[in-house]
Every structure is written in C-alpha cells, then in structure tokens.
C-alpha cells in the first residue's frame, strides 16, 4: 500500500515539474517583458531597461536555458522570482490565496449543499412539474457564463440601490466605508460578500443539481432500493438511507476536489467584484507580462488540483464500503 502511494506521489511530482517547466518556457518566450518598458512615456534608455530586466532574470538576451537554470535553483532557495517591477511573486500568492478563500468559502460550500438537495429532491419527482421547472432553470443558468451572471446582478443591484436610495448592495472590493456602530466591520464585509456569494451559489447549485439528479436517478432505479421498498420500509427511509447515501459517494469526491481548488479562486467573479484573489492575480500577471507570476500561479493551481485528486481518492475510500484498502 505504502509503495503504491509513494509511486503515485512521485508520478504527481514529475507531472507537476514538467507542467511548470513547460509553462516557464511558454511564458518566457511569449510574454516579452521588454515591451512593458518600451511603451513608457517619456522613453527609457535601452541600457537601463536591459539592466532592470537582467536584475530580475527576464532579459531575452540571456539564453533561455540559463534563465531557466537561475529560476529553478532559485526555487530551491524558496525564491519564485519577481515581476518586472520587482514585486515578489510568492508573497503575492501567499496573501491572495486567503482572499480567494474568504470569497469562495461560503459560496462554494452553500452552492454544493443547495445543489445536492435540489438535485436529489427533483430526482424523486422525475418528470413532474417541479422537476421540469428545476431542470429548465438549471439548464438556463449553466448556459449563462459567470461574467454575464456577475454583471446582471450588478445591474440589478445598482437599480435597487438607485430606486431605494440606499447602499444596500456593495460590489467593489472586499471592504469599503465602515460605519461607526458595533460590528460595523463585519456588516461591511458581509455587504461586499453578498453579491459575489449569490453568484457563486447559483452557478454552483445549478451544475451540482444536474449531476446529483442523474446520480440519484441511477440509484433510485437500483435493485437494492427496490428491495428496501419491497421489505416494507417507509418511502422516506428507503430514499434517504438507501438511495441518497449511495448517490452521495461521487458527490463526496467532487466536494473534496472543490475544497482543494477553492484557493485557486474564481477568475470571473473576482474580476467583476474586484476581489484581489488568485484568479484576478493570474489575469493581472498575463496583462503585466509578469513571467514568473504566471509560472507561480500555474504551479499553485497544479498543486491544488493534485491535492484535490488525492483528497477525493481518500474520500471515496472513506465513503464507499466497496472500496477497501489492503
């Protein structure tokens, strides 16, 4: 068993190393940080640009292999590189991952729970009016990109704020004007979290309800549920204990995966509601031609995805009695 786990982790490490190295090559050849300084007004002397680029290991006059080696040996000392303007990349990720987590925690978890509940319930009412309505609504939401949902809620919130002449909905950043009353700080954060959390919940719940509905339909038709009914169990008990429990096993793996990838953030939601999280950082690094930033975000996302994969395997082993570890 230990050997199996060891081999698997080793495979993951190699996978990650290759992925990050390829990303480095891609970013270093495509992003051209020199252009960042060349467009400045008033123009900067080429020699000074070169000096700045050399300082941060970004100059394309140095061979790619040499830049790669400097960057790789730096990582072993804990230095992931800097942006062309000298901002430490690793520090950025360390602070921003918690912003992403703060934004996503409630939204993601509530989205999954609500989606599971709706999906399982509508499966027990297959082809009835309520099931058809839920299916139609979730299909509509799944077909709507996150950025459209985000801006639509903003339009709605602005309209409400204007008509009621209040500032109930806040949608720029994590915090704003803090009032002068007890727990004003918390209220302010809550106000700013309200809309993005709503967006995350409806997006998450819509896709989760589709998945859970299909899983539940499969298990409702299974022989063991028929047996449970045939031996005289109450309908609610047969559904809850026999159908729902088995239908929740794949959801458990999905849940584990979502928790691990929460740190990576939700790019669109962060951008629209101006949360400086990892997703927003990823986009910024590309626009600002920040080679090492791109690589670090990719590496971080890769670690999260692989951690999610490991976690979901563990989750299956815990939840599913058919999977036994020798």
């Amino acid at each position, binding site marked *: 068993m230990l050997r199996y786990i060891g081999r698997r982790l080793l495979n993951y490490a190699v996978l990650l190393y290759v992925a990050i190295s*390829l*990303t480095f090559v891609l970013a270093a050849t495509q*992003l051209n940080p020199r252009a960042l300084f060349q467009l400045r007004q008033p123009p900067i002397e080429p020699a000074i640009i070169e000096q700045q680029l050399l300082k941060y290991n970004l100059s394309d006059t140095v061979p790619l292999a040499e830049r790669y080696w400097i960057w790789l040996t730096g990582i072993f000392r804990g230095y992931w590189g800097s942006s062309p303007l000298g901002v430490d990349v690793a520090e950025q990720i360390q602070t921003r991952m918690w912003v992403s987590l703060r934004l996503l925690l409630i939204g993601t978890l509530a989205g999954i729970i609500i989606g599971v509940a709706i999906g399982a319930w509508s499966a027990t009412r297959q082809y009835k009016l309520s099931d058809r309505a839920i299916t139609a609504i979730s299909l509509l939401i799944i077909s709507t990109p996150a950025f459209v949902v985000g801006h639509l809620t903003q339009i709605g919130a602005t309209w409400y704020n204007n008509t009621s002449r209040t500032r109930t909905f806040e949608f720029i950043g994590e915090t704003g004007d803090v009032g002068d009353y007890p727990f004003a700080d918390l209220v302010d954060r809550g106000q700013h979290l309200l809309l993005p959390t709503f967006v995350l919940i409806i997006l998450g719940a819509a896709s989760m309800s589709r998945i859970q509905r299909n899983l539940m339909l499969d298990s409702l038709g299974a022989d063991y549920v028929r047996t449970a009914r045939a031996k005289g169990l109450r309908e609610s008990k047969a559904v809850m204990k026999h159908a729902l429990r088995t239908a929740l096993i794949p959801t458990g793996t999905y849940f584990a995966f979502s928790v691990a990838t929460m740190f990576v953030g939700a790019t669109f939601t962060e951008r629209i509601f101006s949360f400086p999280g990892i997703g927003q950082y990823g986009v910024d690094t590309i626009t600002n031609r920040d080679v090492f930033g791109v690589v670090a975000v990719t590496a971080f996302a890769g670690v999260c995805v692989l951690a999610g994969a490991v976690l979901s395997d563990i989750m299956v082993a815990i939840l599913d009695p058919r999977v036994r570890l020798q």
Partner: protein
Amino acid sequence: MSEAAVKVETETELVKADPKRLSRGRLVWRRFLRNKTAVVGAFGILFLVFLALFGSSILYWKFDDIDTQSFLAPPSESHILGATRAGRDVLALTVRGLGKSLLIGFMVALMSTTIAALVGASAAYLGGWWEKFALWIVDLLLVVPSFFLIAVASRGAPEGDASWIILAVLLAVFAWPLSARVVRSLTLSIREREYVLAAKFMGLSSFRIIVRHILPNASSLLIIDATLGVGYAILSETGLSYFGFGVQPPDTSLGTLIGEGARMATTFPWVFLGPATVLVFLVLCVNAVGDGLRDALDPSSASGGQA
C-alpha cells in the same frame, strides 16, 4: 365496395400486428423529435447561423458604420439594441461577433473531438508505451490551468486577420483530454469484439481498424461530445475575449463585445445586454441539442418512453 373496405382494414391490422422494423437512424431521429426542448434548440441554432451568415445584408447599419447622431444612444427605432460609445450599432456588432463565436465554436469542437477520438482509440487499441504516453499527456493537460496558458500563448501569437485561427487551435489543444479518456475506456471494450478481431486477422492495418471499425462504433459518444464541445468552446472563447486575451480588435466576437459593454454595464446596460442575451441563447440551444442527442443516441436511456 365492402370488399375494398375489408381489405384496407386487414392491412391496417397487419401493420399493427407486425410493425415495420425501424432502422437505427430512424429510431434516433424519432427519439430526438420527441424531445421538444432539443427541437427548439436545433431551430434556435439554425436561426442564429442564418443571422450570422445573412444578417449583415439584411440589417440597415453595417458593423463599422458610425452614427454621429447617437453616441451611447439607448435602444430606439433606428438602433434596435442601442449604440456604443463610438456610435456603432449594437445589433450589427452583435451579428458580426456572433459569426466569429459560432465559427470558432464549431471549429474547436471538430478539432478537439477528432484529436480525442484518434488519441483515445489508438491508446486503447495499440496499448504499450503509446498508451502510457498518451495518458500521461492527458494528465499533464488536466493539471495546468488551461485558461491562463491559452491567454499567455495567444498574447505572444502574431497579430493580424488570421489570429483567431491560432486561438481556435489553442482552444482545441486544451479541450480534448477529458473526452480522450472516455473514448479510450469505450475502445477498451470495442477492441475485444469479433468484428475487430476479424478485421485484425484479415491483415488490416491498425489505423484502418481504428478509423473503419472502432470509431464508427463509438460514434454516439463522439457526436454527443462534439455537440457539447461547441458550447464549451464558445464559453471558453468568450471568456478569454472578455478579458481581452482572445479575439483581438478590429476583429470582434461576442466575448469582446460583452467585455466592452461590461465596463459600463451599470450605467449603459444595453451595450452589454444585447450580445450577452445572444450568447446565453446560443449556448442554451447548443446544450439543449446536446442533451437531446444524448437521450436519443444512448441505447440505455429511458427518457423517450416507447422505442
């Protein structure tokens, strides 16, 4: 006269007693038609394709016309969906962007399903080091955040009229891995069938066996995959263009337009609402057709009722 009537009656009875065997194509077609949502979706797609092809010759405004009378004009009789900050007609721009988004969507789906089919089927059929290598590449592509990498790669790509083709290729390169895995697991069972073994012992080359005998028997999966792939590709393309990484001006797509309109969505919503509505309608239609095809093609599906 009565004789004829009797004859007709017996004939209808015969038809009832021994219904004509349906071919698979007709069966799938009938199942698809029974799903009203999917039929509506199919008509929706046809309508949008028609609009993208012939819209520019029907509409009064051209996409690059500038109406100096109406900067940021709200929807009115002359500009049905309003006008942008530069005085361009939102409807004409939307139709133009729709064309590009549709083109990219279909191209990417076709390319990624082709790659997925060839890689997945050959990995399962040939086995050995090729299978290990292919699965490893699949894992690699699933680990990296594809959205960022496409953005990085398209940033350094040469600019010009054909830059959207590079974008389409990039989207396809990152879209195939998951489907390739599914094709592989399906091929693992098809590989053992008698007709594949027969073809093998007749001395057919592996490539011919994959293309002529394995892939046609995985066609249901491939058709569904390609259809849902169109929706996925359109969403990825518009997402990238929304951030300014995908389709570059002066070229335009639905995502570029939405990104442009989103900056003033709360004050001048029509610049955003027009293309956004079209995008949602398009993806909704594609998803509806995809679901309908899945129900119609899947032999184990119980959704259709009879036959």
